[in-house]
């Protein structure tokens, strides 16, 4: 099979032919970008040698945007227009945000919340896109120099416990930032790749990932280059931020302060974060600040007091940990090692609690801030087709939360259970409730609870045009498909009439396609890169890809085709070669479709054969 050129020993492309791909860790508090250079994954730094980019975006009245350290420095001065921790709001409604106690002006709108800034309303997706854009520029500068070049794509990491809406929002942000997403990768899994390949690890490992705003616990089985996620659990709203917030409340209490303004709140939150970090190595710190009123805050804090006030947050990580173990049907003693990920795991009481729970010292040999980005870079490099000889490891990941449908009585029926290996497809048949019922409302939910109201609403759509029948006579098949990014697609069809639900899905907390198009348009700074040239480039890339794959398939496997089939394919291929010289993306698209159609059967035969060969290989090896 031609495609296997990516994994055949000694077949890695020459360096100048390599497609450059990056790994991006889009974190709640900090973000990073990494790439594989000369076979080694490295974090890419900015011009001043800084690896971590604070995930802070500031909107200015003239429409310009500051990202990173510059924005972070302005948090206390301009709290409403300086957005930190936007990741916490990705794919979330206003209702979810209220509990968060932030200084922002939220806009009450259905679906995903928005933030009011001096530059207009901003979706968390747009805020994240600004961070991604900057990381993309950093990577381009670092990999290509001032001359420029084109990135093949990126692997973007997400918390393993992110639901479908949060994942989709992350992918949309990357799209708006002009990034070709090769894969959404779960953060703990990315860390496991970096750790496992580095240490040639085998056996069962737990990855304990406490980031700025999210907690994940994944259990992986590492066997001969296969990274198999057995279970994952977590809390999508628990992280280092919460420790800062708890500490800030304590300071307010200690100093007997009146309710804080947004500016003072951000100021004290910043001071609290610094104190928390210092307490990792120091026994005591002094927290001093001058409030807007001129009032001076000055309190002393010992490590012990800090640990006592935040111990409940550490304890909160242990129940998902137990759940992940139970879901994987494992005991604590089955776990060979615990890999620590995320800056928040530096806190000594987190280390102690994890060590006590697993009855072994946690593994800290990779920088907990960088390991996710490094793993993402390694995966990006492999997906771009730059695998080195013998470098044929494989990742098998799972969905973190069950996917289901709303049934009569507000009960959730699970279609795909949590911890199913992706990609996965399941279908279930339903029937009508009333005589003559011609439409069926489908409500897709995610979560473990029995009541729909306790689960997260993902989308609603309607199947219309069901022929009138007696109640219970219609047979409606609802199909769920989760792809390798962990993203869900749902379709419904009435089996006796073949009516298909063609209505667009209304994501409950996502962006509609027209929102994304508008944001895309807004995000193009100059005419150089507009929607049209992008569409053309996309079709050209896909066309070239199809040509290369078809040529090499014909060269290697023409034995699977009759002469007529072979001629038919060659004719369509020649036409595609011609059309590709034109700048007409619609014609390229339609010819791509024709070649795809002509080669569909050929591709299927080659796939069948490679499946058979894989097993034949196994049987020989077993003898």
């Amino acid at each position: 099979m031609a495609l296997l050129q990516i994994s055949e020993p000694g077949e890695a492309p020459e360096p100048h032919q390599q497609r450059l791909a990056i790994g991006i860790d889009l974190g709640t508090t900090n973000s990073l970008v990494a790439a594989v250079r000369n076979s080694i994954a490295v974090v890419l730094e900015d011009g001043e040698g800084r690896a971590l980019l604070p995930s802070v975006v500031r909107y200015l009245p003239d429409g310009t945007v500051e990202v990173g350290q510059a924005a972070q420095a302005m948090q206390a001065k301009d709290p409403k227009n300086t957005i930190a921790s936007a990741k916490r709001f990705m794919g979330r409604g206003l209702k979810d945000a209220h509990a968060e106690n932030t200084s922002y002006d939220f806009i009450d709108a259905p679906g995903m919340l928005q933030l009011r800034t001096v530059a207009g309303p901003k979706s968390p997706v747009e805020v994240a896109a600004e961070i991604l854009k900057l990381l993309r520029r950093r990577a381009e500068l670092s990999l290509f120099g001032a001359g420029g070049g084109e990135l093949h794509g990126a692997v973007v990491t997400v918390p393993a416990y992110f639901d479908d809406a949060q994942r989709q929002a992350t992918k949309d942000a990357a799209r708006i930032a002009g990034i070709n997403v090769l894969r959404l990768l779960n953060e703990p899994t990315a860390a496991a790749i970096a750790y496992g390949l580095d240490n040639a690890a085998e056996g069962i490992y737990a990855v304990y990932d406490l980031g700025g705003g999210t907690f994940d616990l994944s259990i992986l089985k590492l066997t001969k280059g296969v990274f198999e996620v057995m279970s994952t659990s977590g809390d999508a709203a628990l992280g280092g931020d919460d420790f800062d917030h708890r500490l800030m409340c304590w300071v307010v209490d200690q100093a007997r302060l009146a309710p804080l303004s947004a500016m003072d709140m951000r100021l004290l939150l910043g001071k609290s974060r610094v104190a928390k970090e210092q307490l990792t190595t120091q026994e005591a710190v002094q927290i001093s600040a001058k409030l807007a009123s001129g009032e001076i805050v000055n309190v002393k804090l010992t490590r012990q007091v800090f640990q006592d006030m935040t111990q409940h947050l550490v304890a909160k990580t242990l129940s998902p940990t137990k759940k992940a173990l139970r879901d994987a049907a494992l005991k604590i003693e089955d776990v060979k090692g615990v890999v620590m990920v995320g800056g928040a795991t530096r806190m000594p009481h987190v280390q102690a609690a994890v060590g006590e729970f697993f009855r072994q010292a946690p593994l800290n040999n990779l920088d907990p801030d960088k390991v996710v980005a490094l793993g993402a870079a390694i995966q990006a490099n492999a997906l771009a087709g730059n695998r080195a000889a013998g470098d044929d490891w494989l990742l098998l990941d799972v969905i973190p939360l069950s996917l289901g449908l709303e049934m009569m009585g507000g009960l959730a029926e699970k279609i795909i259970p949590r911890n199913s290996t992706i990609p996965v497809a399941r279908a279930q048949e339903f029937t009508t409730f009333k005589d003559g019922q011609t439409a069926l409302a489908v409500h897709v939910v995610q979560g473990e609870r029995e009541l729909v109201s306790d689960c997260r609403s993902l989308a609603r759509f309607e199947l219309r045009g069901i022929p009138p029948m007696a109640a219970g006579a219609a047979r409606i098949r609802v199909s769920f498909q989760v792809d390798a990014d962990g993203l869900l697609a749902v379709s419904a069809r009435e089996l006796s009439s073949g009516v298909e639900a063609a209505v667009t899905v209304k994501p409950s907390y996502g962006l509609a396609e027209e929102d994304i198009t508008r944001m895309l348009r807004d995000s193009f700074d100059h005419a150089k890169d507009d929607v049209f040239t992008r569409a053309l480039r996309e079709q050209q890339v896909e066309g070239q890809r199809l040509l290369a794959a078809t040529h090499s398939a014909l060269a290697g496997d023409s034995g699977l085709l009759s002469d007529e089939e072979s001629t038919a394919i060659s004719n369509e291929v020649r036409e595609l070669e011609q059309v590709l010289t034109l700048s007409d993306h619609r014609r390229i698209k339609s010819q791509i479709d024709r070649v795809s159609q002509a080669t569909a059967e050929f591709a299927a035969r080659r796939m069948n054969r490679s499946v058979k060969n894989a097993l034949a290989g196994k049987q020989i090896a077993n003898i």
Partner: protein
Amino acid sequence: MNLDIKQNHFTLFGLPEGFRLPLEELDRAYRKLAAEVHPDRFTHAPENERRLSMQWAMHVNEAYQTLKKPLKRAGYLLSLHGIDPAIETNTSMPHDFLIEQMEWRESLEEANEGHDAAALAGLETKLHAEMQALYAVAEGQLDAQHDYPAAAGTFRKLMFLDKLGEEIHYAITELDD
């Protein structure tokens, strides 16, 4: 599309058809096939091959889960022999089994109301043992006696118990939270 996925799951993994299965060999064959068809291997292939890879990967995952879990494997074997194992209604279960079920449910409710983690863990252990015994019965009926109607009866009992197991699991998880 001519997906060669109509074939028997056992054939797919190159394993002998039967309830008793060498699980390590299944794991090995699965990893081999998954490596062959996984979408990660096709990220820069043309769209039709990417779609094909996803369909195949979904199928291999489904087939693996079906064979790996004993309850699903038993159901699958029954379906291969023309018995629809999905029939949940209109099946009369033996009287003593139903009585036993009621007793299980009562114990579960009691443990749940008392937030009794130890009692829940005890129920889980007891249920596990009961299911193992029934799996041994199913193995005999499926592999040795080839008595599929009898195996279907055992299978239905196991479905009840599996459902119960899920509820116990759920109760334990809730208690932890």
